């Protein structure tokens, strides 16, 4: 398990990184390396050059600007968990990140890396979709913004063009009175979830006005479940109905940890937990 030979380039700044990326289709951005380096060592990919963006300081900032909480791509999970602003604005992120692998991995793994990699079993992409995050991509022609809902195209497929770098993720602070929920079912703490849910509910006088559900570990990308949300606005939670509706919403894909049936079951259980917690 030694990776094939590759070049290493430490980018001085963002423009420098974009230049190199533009000039070489086989170049790959190295952020925290927690997913990339194992795939190299297992010879699942063989990039020509790794562009290390780890010394670009502007990518390591957490800012509040124009009612957005903005996470630089190179913020580590640990840094975010320890940030006062984040814990005030999105306390749920701390709970969620605590389930991302283990401390050593959270110290190296980055926010931008997780969002950009788009692992369907990862927590952060689902969270970004749920709260309508905006994903900022920088390329040779400047910056563009893609809504998280439009960002994930398929299994490990995203809207990032080959000459672009994900530089930050903007989270709208005002969630319109939405209450947020996160839970997942794993075999062991820190494992990829057999099924996970981030959800939100907006209530008026204890009446549910809006419900959003985004599942992870269930399909080829973060899975929204519009029919189930609609059902829940009209009906009380009922395990069997929810499981059936979820199967209409999501093409549950089995993986090594669980069958598609198991994933549908656990998703329905998670919805039940959410309705109990947020109602």
């Amino acid at each position, binding site marked *: 398990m030694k990776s094939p030979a590759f070049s290493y380039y430490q980018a001085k700044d963002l423009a420098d990184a974009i230049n190199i990326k533009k000039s070489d289709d086989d170049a790959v951005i190295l952020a925290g390396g927690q997913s990339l380096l194992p795939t190299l060592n297992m010879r699942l990919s063989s990039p020509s050059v790794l562009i290390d963006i780890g010394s670009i300081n502007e990518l390591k900032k957490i800012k509040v600007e124009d009612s957005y909480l903005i996470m630089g791509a190179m913020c580590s999970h640990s840094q975010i968990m320890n940030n006062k602003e984040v814990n005030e604005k999105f306390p749920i992120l701390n709970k969620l990140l605590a389930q991302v692998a283990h401390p050593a991995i959270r110290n190296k793994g980055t926010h931008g890396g997780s969002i950009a990699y788009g692992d369907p079993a990862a927590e952060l992409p689902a969270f970004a979709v749920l709260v309508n995050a905006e994903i900022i991509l920088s390329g040779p022609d400047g910056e563009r913004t893609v809504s998280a809902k439009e960002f994930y195209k398929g299994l490990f497929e995203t809207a990032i063009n080959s000459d672009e770098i994900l530089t930050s993720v903007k989270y709208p602070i005002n969630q319109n009175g939405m209450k947020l929920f996160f839970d997942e079912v794993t075999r062991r*703490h820190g494992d*990829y979830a057999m099924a996970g849910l981030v959800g939100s509910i907006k209530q008026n006088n204890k009446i549910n006005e809006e419900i959003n559900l985004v599942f992870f570990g269930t399909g080829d990308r973060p899975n929204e479940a519009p029919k189930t949300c609609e059902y829940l606005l009209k009906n009380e939670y009922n395990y069997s109905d929810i499981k059936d509706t979820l199967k209409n919403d999501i093409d549950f894909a089995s993986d*090594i940890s669980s*069958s598609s049936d*198991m994933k549908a079951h656990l998703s329905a259980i998670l919805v039940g937990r959410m309705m109990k917690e947020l109602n």
Partner: protein
Amino acid sequence: MDDLNQNPKLGAADRPNSYIGRSVPRERAKKLLEGKGKYVDDILLPRMAHLSYVRSPFAHAKIKSINTENAKKYPGVLNVFTIDDIEKVCSPWQGVLGHLGEMRSPTQYPLAKDIVRWQGEPVAVVVANKRAVAEDASELVEIDYEDLDAQLDMETAMDKSTRVIHDDLGNNLFWTRTVNQGDVGEAFKQSHIVEEVTLDFARHTGVTLETRAIVADWDSSEEKMTVYHNGQAPHMMQSIIAKHLNLSEGLVRIISCDVGGSFGIKVHVYPDEMVTVAVSKLMKRPVKFVADRLESYSTDIHSRCHKILGKIGVNDKGKILAFEIDDLSGIGPFSVYPRTSAIETNQVLNLSAASYIIPNYKAKGTVVFQNKTPMCQYRAVGHPIAVAITEALVDKAANALGMDRYEFRKINLIPDNSYPTKTPSGVPLEDLSHEACIEKLEKMMNISQLEKYKKESLAKGKYKGFSIINMVEVTNPSPAFYGVGGAPISSQDGASIRLEGSGAVHISTSITEQGQGTEAVMQQIAADQLGVKIDTVRVTHGDTDATPYGGGTWASRGAGIGGEAVLKASRKLKENILNIAAVIMQSEVNNLDVQNDQVIRKDGGEGISLKDLAQIVYYRGHELPPGTNAELIATASFSIEGIPFVFTNSAMGCLVDVDVDTGLTKIEKFWAVEDCGTQINPKLVEEQIRGGVVQGIGGALYEECIYDEMGNLTNGNMADYLVPMAYEMPDIIVDHVTTNSGRSILGAKGAGEAGTGGAPGAIMNAINDALIPLNTEVTSQPITPEKVLKALGKI
């Protein structure tokens, strides 16, 4: 030689240097924690080349051609070898032994010859200046395969339509054995209650922190082969390498440095390791092979893989009348050399029901070939299967009779005052303490409190269950284990101990250190017996040029056998020391003793330090009267005689919570009472038990080598092959009963197998106890959430 007056009671806490029985901190732990351990991969030799193996991507295929030309041309590559080259210097082997009836396993070549029989089998080896280069070039070795049907499922192995893996054998049977004591048929007829169950155990593997690694260094000038190897049995490897490479055995040196865990994984002969030695011989230079994690998963021996049917018959008073098992196991395409792949099943037959008085016992074991990774002995060989089937049936019988599970066990356990006796399968037992252990366990667990907790939880919709199990554990084997069958595996171990001119004491032992504290234990025994401070004692191990001959470390034999050799050698050395001191000090020997590195006079008066004594002997020998026997070195050996194994026993229990929504099992608490005889270092014993329990939890809940329908291992990485991790581990509470082994002065038995052997049964029974109100059960390990939910009919 043994003057008992000179040898105080073991573990007498009131005298100086009484290290036996004390949790002395081990100095090697500091070395390892500082990252200063020396492992095989740390070995760097001049001109050393690196190997990468080209492995079969198929479970079963014919090799039509191998083209190594492009790989050979790759910059940095030194050579590429196939079986045609290797078989010129390394002969093939056969994993059969003579003492357990007919074993049918064909010749196995160090690299695949004509046919590959498991995904991961080595086919060619690339030698290069760097491992990464060797891996690059491995991708350029072109092998043309013709796919053959793979025989994967052990249950269909003997079907007529199933592909026979070895044509010459006619079918896929490796080995079978039956045991028949009494008349089970008649006894079942007379039984008030008969209960049956079938249990499944998945394949899993050892997952050592340090993967297998070997450096071979052939010196053609001396005709000497030096091999750095992270194994458990250096002298066995010496003999095997000499035999198959046609070398003079005395000129093969095996050095085992620090070993990062072994669990039985590293006590077998692996094709890639033999090829590494052969390549060194062919290239006349040192070569290194370190298995990567992927290779570990697909080529380290796997274990378990059993389907076992069990049946118990009980009279209306709760006495067990009959017990029957029928076990099927799949072992991959070859029986592993030299220990064979029959031992696990043999142990299942020997150990099932072994804690109980059962007049009628019948057992059948069948071992078949498969196109999967070879399977062989791993920690607690056979125990988890034997314990789980026995204890599942015992619980079922007790529940069917409406008897308390603890009381049911108490009336059926072999009483503590009945030894020597035999297991229901006929294996001799002595010095065990089932009753004392289970009584202690019952108090520790507070069973009535647990019953209350279970009831209260159920009222809140929480499903809790607990278990109590009993087991015996095979440790300290005699020659009956392997040597009698023809394997070059010593059942004897040796120790040499010397007093040096500085006053330091140096032991060399044939027992090896795998991180479990061998060194510390040997230091304690020597310091205790000699009467020196423990930091006076150094230990050498793991080097066939520097240590006495012996078996090494496996089957929990290090402390009981190797420790006894150290004890005996220490007593001889002490006798020599006192005899010399008597001359120097003009005293009766009986008036002298050694304490705190000093020879003292028991009646007071001036003594002499061991350093001064040694310096008189070494530097100023002329001061001693002519003819004084001034040897400050002593050697002793020990092996178990008169009994096949020194059995130990334990009782365990656990409390679980089963989440009926997610199927997740949480182990809330685990208890173990172990009787391993004399505990040399109680902390090390307890950590052996805890570590073993954790590995047993792995087998029960997490670990499984998952194959697809083509015979590819699909989860050979640490993300998908789940090992137990700290976050999920419960408190494991350990206590002891001490019944010394009568086979040695030290009285120590082994302690390494119990946890791994007992935990899977304890966990399964606790889960099934929790599921009783839901009228279902689980019978397949690992007990995954999905299996629990299926049992509950939820998916």
